[in-house]
């Protein structure tokens, strides 16, 4: 008899642990899908920008069209990662929900996996919107394989930004979190050439662009869209490195402070 049984707390069957993960994910998704104040800005941001700068104001060739669709797609999927984690974690650390969940026997990873699933779903919606606009409104020439590759890049490309959002959320509480997230989001998008191609920015800014994770996701997205690129592996590696670098301090802070 182990200590658990001796003390009369029944053991948790694996199927029930799995169910706990499932329920947590479902709740996280449902609660934000029902919250237009959270959903609409996140979806509108990138689509409105793309329609304005990528469609209405763009009179470039096929190459420019593909470039803009890909870079606004990156801009679009950064949002769910940064806001989904940063703002909601910041709020839940302040309003006591995270404390309650830590006191409850919630499987510790369920909370993060739930938010991750939500961010990936949002990224999928953003990608679907942007790709539809690109294909049917702007008539960007893309093959089916390229569309699929871009979609997948967007859905998984949100993950490094989840990690960054998580780190911001552990550093800034409640009301301060949205401002802080925007302070990371918008400059980073600009500095990695998502709004204007890097060639149009001052040389020094173009030179330091590889320090931003969004630069590497943009490179991958451009590759997926069939643009020329300097090797996918290096950018994948860079993103994995960023993810780990954001996750480690975040995990440490979460464990210590909750």
């Amino acid at each position: 008899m182990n200590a658990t049984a001796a003390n009369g707390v029944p053991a948790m069957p694996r199927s029930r642990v799995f169910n706990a993960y499932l329920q947590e994910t479902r709740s996280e998704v449902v609660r934000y899908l029902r919250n237009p104040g959270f959903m609409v800005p996140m979806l509108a941001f990138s689509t409105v920008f793309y329609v304005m700068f990528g469609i209405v104001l763009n009179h470039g060739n096929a190459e420019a069209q593909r470039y803009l669709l890909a870079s606004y797609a990156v801009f679009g999927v950064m949002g769910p990662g940064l806001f989904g984690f940063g703002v909601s974690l910041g709020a839940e650390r302040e309003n006591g929900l995270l404390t309650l969940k830590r006191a409850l026997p919630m499987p510790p990873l369920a909370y993060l996996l739930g938010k991750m699933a939500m961010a990936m779903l949002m990224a999928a919606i953003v990608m679907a919107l942007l790709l539809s606009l690109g294909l049917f409104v702007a008539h960007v020439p893309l093959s089916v394989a390229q569309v699929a590759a871009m979609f997948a890049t967007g859905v998984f490309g949100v993950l490094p930004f989840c990690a960054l959002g998580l780190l911001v959320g552990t550093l800034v509480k409640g009301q301060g979190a949205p401002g802080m997230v925007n302070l990371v989001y918008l400059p980073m998008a600009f500095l990695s050439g998502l709004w204007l191609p890097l060639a149009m920015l001052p040389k020094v800014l173009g030179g330091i662009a590889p320090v931003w994770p969004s630069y590497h996701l943009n490179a991958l997205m451009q590759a997926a869209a069939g643009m020329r690129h300097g090797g996918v592996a290096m950018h994948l590696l860079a993103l994995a490195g960023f993810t780990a670098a954001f996750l480690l301090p975040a995990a440490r802070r979460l464990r210590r402070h909750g």
Partner: protein
Amino acid sequence: MASGETALACLRGAVKSYGALRALDGIDLELHRGELLALLGPNGAGKTTAISLLLGLVRADAGEVRLFGMDPQRIEARRGIGVMLQDAQLPATLRVGELIRLTASYYPSPRSVAESAELAGVADLLQRPYGKLSGGQQRRVQFALALCGNPRLLFLDEPTVGMDIEARQKLWSAIRTLVADGVSIVLTTHYLEEAEALADRVCVMAGGKVVSEGSVQALRARIALKRVWCATRLPLAEVAAWPEVADARLDGERLCLSTEHVEALVRRLLAHDAQLSALEVRAAGLAEAFTELTRDDVVAALQEAA
């Protein structure tokens, strides 16, 4: 494991500081099977810190914390507990039924959603979004979440704050039902009548220490004392030795006497000093006695005695 046999949860010599503030100053606390323990004390007494240690939310700087004989930071230990915290804001867009189903999913053998809702009196709210409920209704939902896992030990941190009298009575009766079923409960409150209505054992905290612990009867006996003030020529030492006098001290010009037998004491006072003046008799109400019990100098005196 000596304590594991009898205590479901315990603190032993637990110390916790936040910066310079010593929130818990070496307290011992044991919770036994099937009992309802009330932690009583003013704000800042250390109640919430004590609960946080037992829930594994914070680690003790020193001392030992056990939940079902385990470290409370282990999820296996927490699968036996239900929790209602003071201010946890739940997702406003989720429906009551969804919240219960989610929380129940964390436990090995939970109650059904319907049964949990019935027990907590929220059966009519299952389809309502949490954010649309009144404060009292939200507290009841939080209570449903605390009990939905079918836990053997419940932590209720100020459960009836913000409830009207009727809702409070209903919650009390639900708590009694659970205790009758063999559930143990740790309840923090600063309502004395709540502790009186529910608790088997009351533990009064102040300044990070336990200043009084015992049955409700014992606490009531302590606070059944009445106070008598009077200006008299009788010396303090003489009066203090009378059998009716539980405690005597000088309060400015007057003597202040504590007694359980106020009539006999007043009769004797008047018989010994015909010139006695400024006589005043006051019952120490629960709240007053409680304030008295947690006053700094009283706390110090109790600690010396202990």
